């Protein structure tokens, strides 16, 4: 974890009059929360907390939740600071209600050494929320030689992945899961059979045919997920996490693993539960991402998985890119969109507003769910004595997202100008307010 937020001074903050939703602690009722010295000091019925506090936060009409955790963020440092920096990316995270983000290693160079993990965690990076780095699973993420998992873990990496690419070879994946099992270290898979998807830039369907774009179906993802689940079932203690799961068939494989008690988890992005392949429209580069936006059938399956508990977390896959990488021929445009500042709004507007998924489940997908995936002990729940990471939001607030006002260095989002319900009001990291809505 970054120490940037650990200087919480000897201050106390009383969050008063709010409605606490903390699924891990089974709390869903009006509560006051007292934070002191960067820790949760007390959670009690309204008005029951005695004694003063240095600061008070009036949370009437608002939801007070454990700090949100995003398992999948591209902070782009080292080497790609024209897209994003740790400082700008974590500022965007704070504005989106995230108190912790897990950073992806596909930077330049790839984060495949303990030194680079330490560099990422250094206070000099200027993180305003907690950063949990994920290290590369293979050297330079080339998929051949495994990195030094144990050393990376000691340096503070919380998992390994070759995200941006799959760990494709059966043998390599088996070795990753084996070594991961020995160290209780999760392996995060970007599931994509790149032998099928070469040159593809969207989901195979009526839209890709209409636009004349090379495309691949969800099978390219599901085949890898299925293989990985089978491997995880063979290796006792293996921990497999499926990143940005997007296809209906992948969910079948995840369910197979979960039923057989394998430690298989998965995350879903807001864009996959919101948009469809047809939203690519007339070559909108901000609807180009990997995995691609998929069919209505896939989105339906994803919504079911979110509701029934198969999905473990909502993760943004925040992937900032500069204009000159997006405003090019669609085939050549960079994959990915920003997502930190729209995730909660999309979850409330789409999942709660449109699909009637309870707020408690949504909060779980942002808190207890992701905390369990990577064993982020003490995070994802407001436990007394635990880190004072809190997200305060207004589930009814209507607002319009303007990409130009984003804290991210990049503005590659398909949601510019969208009207949302549900907005982050304040984000507290280690007892300190790091974001407060105007």
């Amino acid at each position, binding site marked *: 974890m970054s120490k940037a937020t650990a200087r919480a001074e000897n201050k106390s903050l009383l969050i008063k009059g709010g409605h606490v939703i903390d699924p891990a602690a089974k709390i869903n009722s009006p509560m006051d929360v007292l934070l002191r010295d960067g820790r949760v000091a007390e959670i009690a019925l309204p008005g029951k907390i005695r004694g003063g506090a240095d600061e008070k936060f009036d949370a009437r009409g608002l939801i007070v939740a454990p700090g949100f955790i995003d398992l999948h963020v591209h902070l782009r440092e080292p080497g790609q600071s024209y897209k994003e920096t740790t400082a700008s990316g974590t500022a965007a995270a704070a504005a989106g209600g995230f108190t912790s983000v897990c950073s992806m290693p596909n930077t330049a160079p790839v984060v495949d050494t303990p030194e680079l993990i330490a560099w990422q965690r250094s206070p000099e990076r200027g993180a305003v929320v907690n950063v949990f780095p994920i290290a590369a699973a293979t050297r330079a993420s080339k998929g051949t030689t495994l990195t030094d998992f144990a050393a990376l873990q000691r340096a503070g990496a919380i998992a390994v992945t070759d995200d941006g690419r799959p760990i494709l070879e059966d043998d390599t994946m088996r070795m990753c899961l084996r070594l991961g099992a020995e160290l209780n270290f999760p392996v995060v898979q970007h599931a994509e059979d790149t032998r099928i998807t070469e040159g593809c830039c969207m989901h*195979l*369907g*009526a839209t890709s*045919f*209409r*636009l*004349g*774009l090379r495309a691949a179906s969800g099978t390219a993802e599901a085949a890898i997920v299925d293989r990985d689940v089978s491997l995880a079932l063979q290796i006792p203690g293996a921990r497999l996490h499926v990143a940005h799961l997007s296809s209906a068939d992948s969910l079948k494989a995840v369910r197979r693993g979960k039923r057989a008690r394998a430690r298989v988890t998965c995350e879903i992005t807001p864009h996959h539960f919101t948009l469809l392949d047809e*939203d690519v*429209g*007339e*070559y*909108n580069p*901000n*609807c180009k991402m990997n995995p691609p936006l998929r069919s209505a059938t896939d989105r339906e399956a994803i919504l079911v998985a979110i509701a029934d508990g198969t999905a473990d977390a909502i993760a943004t896959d925040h992937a900032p890119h500069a204009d*000159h990488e997006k*405003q*090019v*021929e*669609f*085939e*050549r445009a960079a994959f990915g969109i920003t997502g930190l500042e729209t995730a909660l709004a999309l979850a409330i*507007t*789409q999942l709660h*507003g*449109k699909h009637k998924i309870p707020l408690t489940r949504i909060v779980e997908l942002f808190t207890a769910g992701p905390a369990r995936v990577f064993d982020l002990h003490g995070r994802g729940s407001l436990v007394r004595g635990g880190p004072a990471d809190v997200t305060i939001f207004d589930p009814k607030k209507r607002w319009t997202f303007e990409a130009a006002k984003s804290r991210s260095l990049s503005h590659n989002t*398909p*949601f*510019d*100008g*969208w*009207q*949302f*319900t549900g907005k982050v009001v304040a984000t507290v990291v280690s007892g300190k307010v790091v974001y407060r809505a105007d």
Partner: protein
Amino acid sequence: MQRLPIHSIGAAARGSLLGIEHLDPRDILALLKLARRMNAAKPRPLLRGKRIILLFYEPSTRTRTSFEIAAKSLGAITTLVQSSGSSIEKGESLLDTAYTLRAVGADAIVVRHPSAGAPHLMARHLDIPVINAGDGMHEHPSQALLDALTILKHKKSFKGLQVTIVGDIYHSRVARSSILLLAKFGAKVTLCGPPEFAPDLTTTLAPGLRLTRHLDEAVRGADVIMLLRVQKERLAGQKIHLHEYIERYQMTPARLKLARRDALLMHPGPIIRGLELTSEVADCTQSVIVDEVRNGVPMRMAILARALGKAK
């Protein structure tokens, strides 16, 4: 949630021709009508002094020359920019090239590009008309229009016309544009080819499309047969072999007899004799392959005149 049209990043300038898909049928009819009044042999200086840039990122014979002759027949000045021998070779982006061409005074840009959607990207960022002369596997609207012009010289209307399109539909921009145009006017379109070239997905392009794997069935009773070029390199790695393709999908005089006696035989070119059609078929009286090329000039004159607001 109120959803903004996330597709419309910027509007194309008036007069642009990006594809058939979003073209109004009345617009298509007006273009065809205008083309009938155009004649390269009788130049009309409608576009005198206008600068039209032909930006070609892919090789082309007929499309490029016919756009050029069309522009010159209307009195316009043309400049050809190709990817080799220009700054494109040095890594200039498509948009920077487009801005440069605009800055040197282009009044319209005709673009051929290997990437689908490249003309759309240019059109979103330019205030001058962009004409799509073929983008990747997406569309080739001027080809569909000249084919429509050719058909209407022989047939009264598209309504109820039985049109059969044979070959590599999946990879063909000509097929996409023609299917979209014909479907807009109520033609009955049958697609024919092996699954690699005519996957089931092809029928999603427009309502009412029929798909068959059997050429005899596809051709029987047809008013118009459109053949597509088979790119040998596309057959590589496919399940179907060249000789098998020829056996099952080559247009022969015997197969042509299954169509109506007055059926038109069309092909956007370049044709490969002995592959998708025999020489006898290419040169038979029903073949209008050469007419298509000829009609390309007046059709493109109409497209350019419309682009620059001189559609009279």
